[in-house]
């Protein structure tokens, strides 16, 4: 496969997309479904207990049921949206305060190595030395350590280049590359 080179300057939107991708990476779809199931269970159990308590006139059933239902509703309405809002806000703040490093970068995905050139960081790293990589609809995330990651926005490459980069990462990093299918 041919190397793919992209030149870009990170924008605030890219940083937010990167942070959202990081969040999605931390909570894969399976775990999200488990949380959804737990929420449904909480609400269903709460409603059933409350209904049983109301029909049999037993407050000992009603109150725990109401608490369970309220907890389920809280997680559905607030937990995930609140987490996403917080991540978006923190990513925006991080970009404004320069925590995402130098915005202008040149990244080359080669057959064996990943090359990065920016004002303060130059690297030519074999894929085997990278911690992991992740791709979603908007960005590629390249991890040089568990808490060090670089955002490569997909807006900087054509569909063909995007597929080529995915192929290169899959070949170079094997199971360390995770592709989120939109």
């Amino acid at each position, binding site marked *: 496969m041919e190397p793919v080179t992209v030149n870009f300057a990170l924008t605030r939107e890219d940083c937010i997309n990167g942070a959202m991708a990081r969040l999605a990476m931390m909570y894969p779809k399976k775990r999200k479904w488990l949380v959804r199931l737990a929420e449904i269970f909480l609400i269903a159990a709460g409603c059933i207990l409350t209904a049983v308590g109301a029909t049999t006139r037993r407050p000992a059933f009603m109150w725990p049921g109401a608490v369970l239902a309220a907890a389920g509703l809280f997680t559905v309405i607030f937990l995930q949206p609140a987490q996403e809002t917080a991540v978006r806000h923190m990513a925006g703040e991080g970009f404004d305060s*320069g*925590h*995402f*490093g130098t915005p202008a970068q040149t990244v080359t995905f080669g057959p064996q190595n990943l090359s990065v050139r920016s*004002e*303060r*960081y*130059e*690297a*030519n*790293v*074999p894929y085997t*030395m990278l*911690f992991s990589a992740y791709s979603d609809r908007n960005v590629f995330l390249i*991890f*040089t*350590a*568990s*808490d*060090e990651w670089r955002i490569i926005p997909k807006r900087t490459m054509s569909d063909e280049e995007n597929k080529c980069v995915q192929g290169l990462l899959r070949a170079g990093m094997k199971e360390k590359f995770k592709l989120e299918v939109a």
Partner: protein
Amino acid sequence: MAEQKTFEPVAVEEVLTEQDFIEAAKAVSYFAHPMSRRSIRMAMCFTGAVIMTALTFVCGKKWLWLPVTIAAIFLLSAIIIWFFQPEREKKHTQKWLSSCPLAVLPTGVIVFRDRVVLKSNCETITEYFTDFSLCVETEHLIAAAGGPERFLLIVKKDGMSAEKSERLSGLFRYAFGGRWYRMAERE
């Protein structure tokens, strides 16, 4: 003239080990998060235990079990913190290090008055001291935390001449000012 000499760049060749990272992470965490020190956490637990013990004197016999149980939990927490916190911190550092093979490559470090340049086979990183949050000097190394490219910067002093070590220390002291700390061996 002597003042100018202090600002001459210092070049160091180093290969960092797991022990260096553990020492640096411990030193940085000690000053960056004072409330997380195990001595402080233990003191908080003991204070809680003392307050709960005092409450046993005003509780009736019926409710005596409650402050006694809470005091026991505080004491147990203090013991757990004392014995397990250092081990947990060490494991956290080891886990990070195992995820970053780039950090243990042989590296040439050049320390200037305002920045540091780290050059290994794979990376060249330029970090400005204004981006870091603090710097801690220990017996064996100087560690700075908060770099945008690599969070922990470590410069080893082992095997360095006393004059070079003093110049290096002076550069960091000058660059970090009030954010520079020295960690005594016993801490």
